[in-house]
């Protein structure tokens, strides 16, 4: 008998929105139907593994049987082994065994440090959360969340290298001492873009000690903003003050931060950031975005214009021209009528919001665009104290660039280089600088880093770097608040050195390298250096120091305001850029524009060995573990490659004839989904890279994310010969294609004139865009603040109708299948103190993956590896759905669909379909409304996942925690596979969450360990009350207020991490007192799949778009309600 599938009612003819997750769905491919129809797709549940015949299911069972029989003979497992409790010898202050200790620290990075609160258990950091006390607090992004895994990375650099070969500390010490004692050394320092007061102070001291010393800074993906603003000047945005925001290719919410971004998202909620007022469209901001391909910021845009990056100059010029700015005269006019009709009302809107708007230029855009953006902002009066934009004078002045460094090396002014930048210049420097040859000219080069990357191997010396969670330093946040970085743990490996420690060694008379803990528990010399810097800031004394360590920042010390004006070179730069842009006409299919994109998973390549980031699906393309060239569907059609891209590799062969589709996909069909490989040729250089379709991308552009392809070995699926194998670990090996070789100094961001050709090769890519695809009408709902004169009505009416979208408009009232009370008539969900609930605000969610990685860190979620992801076995408890939707009648730009992200985790249904089908009661409800999983009861029938309409359950097909899934075929070797037990990454595990084993179902728990912890902590209040009252406990009546946790006092890991405040969690019984209670009562609140009667505890708040009614595309905005049928 075939499976019975409930068919959703047809979408009414009046529905104008078309929505899709993937090209496969848009084309309605059989493959997508398969993903949609099953809880796990064909083959996911099969034990079909690698090619070897002995690894069939049967032989696996044989092995299992034999090993358990052997185990039985000894009966060794039956008696409990003797275990020990090992207390401290001398109890460290503040450490309570079994309780987390929290410290304030921060993660230094270019663009401003991320202030953090770090959870440690007995001195072992396990989880990162934002420091919400910090003036520049802005949540965390996926990079910050995942950075803790780098501390425990198995392939972390832990030994000194000399010319790429293992060396001894003593040898390096001798070389360092020789350098430190030679004050005539022609030494240079290459640091990152992050700002550190202590490093700046030490560099001044170094300049005094070594009169010939020179200082440079380099990161791979920085632009020319500094040319427009002046040396060391940066622009920081205060989004709370901006009513209108124009982003010219600036992904300020994602990879190109311009200041704390949380206030931006707070103003995406018409009810205020904590839902405290009546909906008011005028309190919302409005975002205009011009960009080439969808970024996280572009997904939030109210109006989005697709444009190749080289054309941004013209658009910026046109905006400036309409505002009457003289410098705009140097730029060619925009002639396209559609673009003009888009720019005109935008300019009018900016004029109407003088001093309350901002124009942000992407930091990787050339200087001319930054000149124009500055001119526009100055003309609108947007810069200055109390204005949306602040111009700040940083301390990073007088630093040379990588090109300057090359010049100085070539001229012999520098013969010794100390590289401490987190970038990897041998790998990521523009090819025309030929940095490997430049580096080879040096007498000595010293590289400090946490990875043994290309630069580590090319330098004379590589010094293993300490992680920021192991070192003392300081840094500055986005707006310059002095922020401390304090170590949570001594360096895991004794030779790991921090940047400050290395500089201090060079400054010392004898060049002695001191790192980590000294004799007799003496602190690292970096501690003293940081404290001296702090004292010099005018904060002497123990009290101020202790406050700094407790709070993590010193609010009084920030960047001074700068007074920017258009630089003298503005007109020349603009003219030069205009000539350059004029030479290359609009890109065409024959002469494509290549965009070297910042990767959302690995940034510039520095995170290539971070398994969490690699496995987190790219927010837009949903690729894991690889990169691919992205191309717009129309361009692909014009090039005649669209059909090749969207149809999968033929997989079945009958008598040597390949059939078009694998109609059954018997064994891991997903693994055979191979994408075609194209060759991209630019200026005579070419690379081969797999290609994918990307929606909403500008035509005739090709986006190539950077940072991949750092090392290959014999298992490479593209058939490249093994190279640079030792540069990366198991995580980073054979990942994607390196696009840096296409890039030179003049084309560091984009280049025109590229051509592509199909190579005939195919490459498997693990893309999750079709995984766990849900059925249902009105999954994500969207409304608009304006009345576009159709049946949807004005803002008020649209809000009132949110709950009636989709099937909810006409479905009969729900009849619950299960009685909510037991046989005695008592309610089953009966806790009078706490009833947990959550709401997710789609109006502020941008789909950035911060929650997904935070959840992974908090809940011990394993990674499964590329092959397993391709089979749909990824374990992330939060699935970040990403939908595209377009209006059928969109005559402005039909190829610019709206992007709607929607995070879905277990919604904790009150009448949960999963619970009734479990044969062993492993998933049951708790009194406080959680849908609980008892892992040790689960026998792995997977009935629950089969019955979950939200597809929120994840199954451990293998022992991902115990057996490293990244070793080829390791999972399939069963008990013979290599165990990962004892790998350093196990130190990251949260001790309060069970590490699940093979054959167990799991899913979101609402971070039950945090809930239990807070509820139990609250119970101590009973004793406190008795003590305060001075009465015996027998005379005290314990009340609800004693035992109920304070309002909004517990946060789930995802909520805590969210930079957009999109997730609200709390106790439903707090009602209007809590943000959650208020969010549940507003009009935008709706239940996902409400009409099937599951009564979920997680509800969603409809997305609100705030279009400008004068814009030509206004009536197509705010209508992306997602139907999946």
């Amino acid at each position, binding site marked *: 008998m075939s499976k019975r599938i409930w068919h959703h009612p047809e979408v009414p003819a009046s529905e104008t929105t078309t929505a899709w997750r993937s090209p496969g769905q848009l084309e309605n491919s059989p493959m997508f139907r398969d993903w949609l129809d099953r809880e796990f797709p064909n083959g996911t549940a099969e034990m079909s593994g690698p090619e070897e015949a002995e690894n069939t299911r049967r032989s696996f069972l044989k092995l299992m049987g034999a090993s358990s029989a052997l185990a039985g003979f000894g*009966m060794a497992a*039956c*008696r*409990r082994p*003797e*275990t*020990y*409790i*090992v*207390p*401290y*010898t*001398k*109890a460290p202050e503040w450490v*309570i*065994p*079994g*309780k987390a200790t929290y410290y304030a620290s921060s993660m230094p990075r270019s663009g401003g440090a991320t202030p953090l609160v770090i959870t440690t258990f007995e001195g072992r950091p396990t989880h990162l959360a934002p420091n919400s006390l910090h003036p520049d607090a802005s949540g965390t992004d996926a990079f910050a969340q995942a950075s803790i895994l780098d501390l425990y990375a198995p392939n972390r650099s832990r030994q000194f290298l000399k010319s790429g070969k293992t060396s001894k500390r003593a040898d390096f010490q001798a070389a360092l001492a020789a350098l430190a004692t030679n004050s005539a050394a022609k030494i240079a320092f290459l640091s990152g873009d992050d700002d550190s007061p202590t490093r700046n102070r030490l560099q001044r001291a170094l300049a005094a000690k070594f009169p010939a010393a020179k200082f440079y800074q380099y990161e791979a993906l920085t632009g020319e903003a500094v040319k427009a603003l002046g040396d060391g000047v940066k622009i920081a945005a205060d989004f709370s003050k901006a009513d209108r925001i124009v982003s010219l290719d600036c992904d300020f919410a994602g990879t190109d931060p311009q200041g704390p971004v949380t206030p931006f998202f707070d103003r995406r909620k018409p009810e205020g950031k904590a839902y405290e007022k009546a909906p008011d469209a005028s309190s919302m901001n409005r975002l205009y975005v011009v960009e080439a391909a969808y970024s996280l910021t572009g997904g939030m845009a109210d109006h989005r214009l697709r444009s190749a990056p080289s054309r941004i100059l013209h658009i910026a010029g046109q905006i400036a021209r309409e505002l009457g700015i003289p410098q705009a005269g140097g730029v060619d006019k925009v002639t396209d009528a559609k673009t003009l009709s888009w720019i005109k009302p935008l300019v009018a809107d900016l004029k109407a919001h003088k001093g309350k708007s901002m124009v942000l230029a992407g930091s990787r855009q050339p200087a001319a665009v930054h000149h124009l953006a500055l001119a526009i902002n100055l003309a609108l009066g947007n810069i200055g104290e109390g204005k949306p934009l602040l111009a700040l004078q940083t301390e990073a002045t007088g630093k040379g660039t990588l090109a300057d460094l090359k010049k100085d090396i070539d001229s012999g002014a520098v013969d010794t280089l100390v590289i401490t930048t987190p970038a990897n210049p041998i790998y990521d420097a523009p090819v025309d600088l030929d940095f490997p040859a430049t580096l080879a000219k040096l007498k000595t080069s010293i590289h400090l880093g946490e990875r043994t990357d290309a630069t580590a191997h090319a330098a004379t010396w590589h010094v293993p770097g300490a992680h920021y969670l192991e070192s003392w330093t300081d840094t500055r946040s986005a707006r310059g608040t002095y922020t401390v970085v304090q170590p949570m743990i001594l360096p895991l490996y004794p030779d790991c050195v921090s940047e400050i420690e290395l500089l201090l060694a060079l400054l010392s008379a004898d060049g002695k390298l001191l790192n980590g803990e000294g004799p007799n528990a003496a602190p690292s010399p970096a501690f003293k250096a940081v404290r001296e810097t702090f004292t010099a800031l005018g904060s002497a004394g123990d009290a101020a120091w202790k406050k700094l360590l407790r709070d993590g920042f010193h609010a009084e010390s920030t960047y001074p305001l700068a007074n920017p004006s258009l630089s003298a070179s503005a007109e020349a730069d603009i003219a030069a850029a205009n000539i350059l842009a004029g030479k290359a006409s609009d890109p065409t299919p024959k002469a494509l524009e290549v965009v070297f994109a910042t990767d959302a998973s690995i940034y510039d390549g520095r995170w290539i060995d971070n398994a969490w980031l690699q496995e987190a699906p790219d927010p837009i393309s949903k690729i894991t573990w690889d990169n691919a060239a992205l191309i717009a569907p129309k361009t692909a059609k014009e090039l005649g490659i669209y059909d090749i891209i969207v149809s999968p590799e033929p997989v079945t062969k009958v008598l040597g004839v390949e059939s078009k589709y694998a109609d059954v996909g018997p064994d891991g069909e997903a693994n055979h989904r191979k994408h075609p490989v194209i060759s991209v040729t630019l200026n005579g250089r070419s690379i081969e890279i797999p290609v994918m379709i990307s929606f909403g991308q500008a035509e005739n552009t090709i986006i190539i994310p950077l940072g991949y392809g750092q090392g290959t070995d014999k298992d490479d699926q593209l058939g490249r010969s093994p190279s640079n194998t030792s540069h990366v670990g198991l995580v980073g090996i054979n990942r994607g294609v390196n696009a840096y070789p296409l890039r030179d100094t003049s084309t560091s961001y984009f280049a025109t004139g590229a051509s592509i050709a199909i190579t005939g090769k195919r490459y498997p890519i693990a893309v999750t865009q079709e995984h766990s695809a849900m059925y249902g009408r009105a999954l994500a709902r969207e409304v608009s603040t304006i009345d576009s004169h159709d049946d949807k009505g004005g803002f008020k009416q649209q809000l009132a109708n949110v709950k009636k979208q989709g099937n909810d408009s006409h479905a009969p009232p729900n009849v619950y299948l299960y009685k909510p009370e037991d046989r005695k008539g008592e309610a089953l969900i009966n*806790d009078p103190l706490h009833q947990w609930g959550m709401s997710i605000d789609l109006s502020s969610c941008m789909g950035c993956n911060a929650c997904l990685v935070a959840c992974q860190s908090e809940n011990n979620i394993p990674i499964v590896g590329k092959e397993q992801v391709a089979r749909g076995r990824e374990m992330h408890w939060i699935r970040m759905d990403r939908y595209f939707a377009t209006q059928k009648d969109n005559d402005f730009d039909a190829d610019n669909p709206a992007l709607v992200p929607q995070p879905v985790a277990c919604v904790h249904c009150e009448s949960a379909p999963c619970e009734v089908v479990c044969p062993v009661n492993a998933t*049951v*409800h*708790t*009194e406080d409304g*959680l849908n*609980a*999983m*008892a*892992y*040790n*009861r689960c026998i792995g029938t997977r009935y629950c996942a089969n019955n979950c309409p939200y597809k929120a359950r994840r199954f451990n097909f293998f022992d991902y925690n115990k057996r490293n899934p990244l070793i080829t075929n390791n999972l399939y070797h069963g008990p013979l596979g290599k165990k990962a037990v004892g790998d350093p990454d196990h130190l990251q595990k949260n001790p*309060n*969450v*069970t*590490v699940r084993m093979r054959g167990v179902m799991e899913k979101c*728990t609402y971070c*039950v*360990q945090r809930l*239990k912890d807070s509820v*139990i*902590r609250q*119970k*101590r209040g*009973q*004793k406190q009350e*008795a003590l305060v009252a001075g009465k*015996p*406990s*027998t005379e*005290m*009546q*314990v*009340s*609800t207020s*004693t*035992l109920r946790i304070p309002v909004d006092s517990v946060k789930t890991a995802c909520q805590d991490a969210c930079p957009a405040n999109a997730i609200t969690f709390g106790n439903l019984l707090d009602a209007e007192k809590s943000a959650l209670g208020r969010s549940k009562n507003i009009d935008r609140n709706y239940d996902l799949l409400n009409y099937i009667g599951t009564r979920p505890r997680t509800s969603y708040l409809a997305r609100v778009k705030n279009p400008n009614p004068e814009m030509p595309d206004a009536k197509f905005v705010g209508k992306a309600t997602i139907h999946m049928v």
Partner: protein
Amino acid sequence: MANIFPRWSNLLPLKIAVCIGSAVAGVALAFNYYATPKSLTVGYQPSQPIPFSHKIHVDQLGLDCRYCHSFVDVSGHSNVPTSNTCWNCHQHVQRDSPKLAPLHRSMDPAFPGYDGKPIEWVRIHKSPDYVYFNHSAHVNRGISCQSCHGDVNKMEVVYQDQSHSMGWCLECHRAPEKHLRPLEEVYNFDYNAETYISNNPQLGVKTTKDLGLKLKEQFDVKPKESCATCHH
């Protein structure tokens, strides 16, 4: 017709039955001995590196539990004292007792075998990794140490007194009144409910059961029985 089955085979069915029977009985006994929680742990009394006597320290000297297990009321884990807790007293008292050699090795730099390493106490009470028992949740709500650990104050060498199986946990979660005490009496190993009632007539309860029920109502104690209470 020839006899196919020789005469001895008459007893074969019986023999088979006896063999199978004893094998089954053996398995049942083995299961009962090895695999049930009770036989696994109750009475487990390993010898410790230092023959620490709770009887002397608690019963004779009157030390409070929380002098050594100092975080029992704030943390889920009830800590075993660090070496310096022992040393606080024993650098003065019984300093030269040979039984304290491991402590000297851990704390006393003047001791010949000093290595500064912690003392490895043998674990007696162990719940599985997937069980999250929280001490502070219990001792702050009127459940005494004694309820789970027995009369530790009378133990020369500590042993496991109760089974700590899930059924045993649930017994109390279903009827906490049998174990509830006034908060002041949680750490008092000489507590006797009947004496307490007679000393506190103002409570207005006559039986120990009534006292338990009164405390349960007054403390608002509603122990949970759902899985996520202990398993997450």
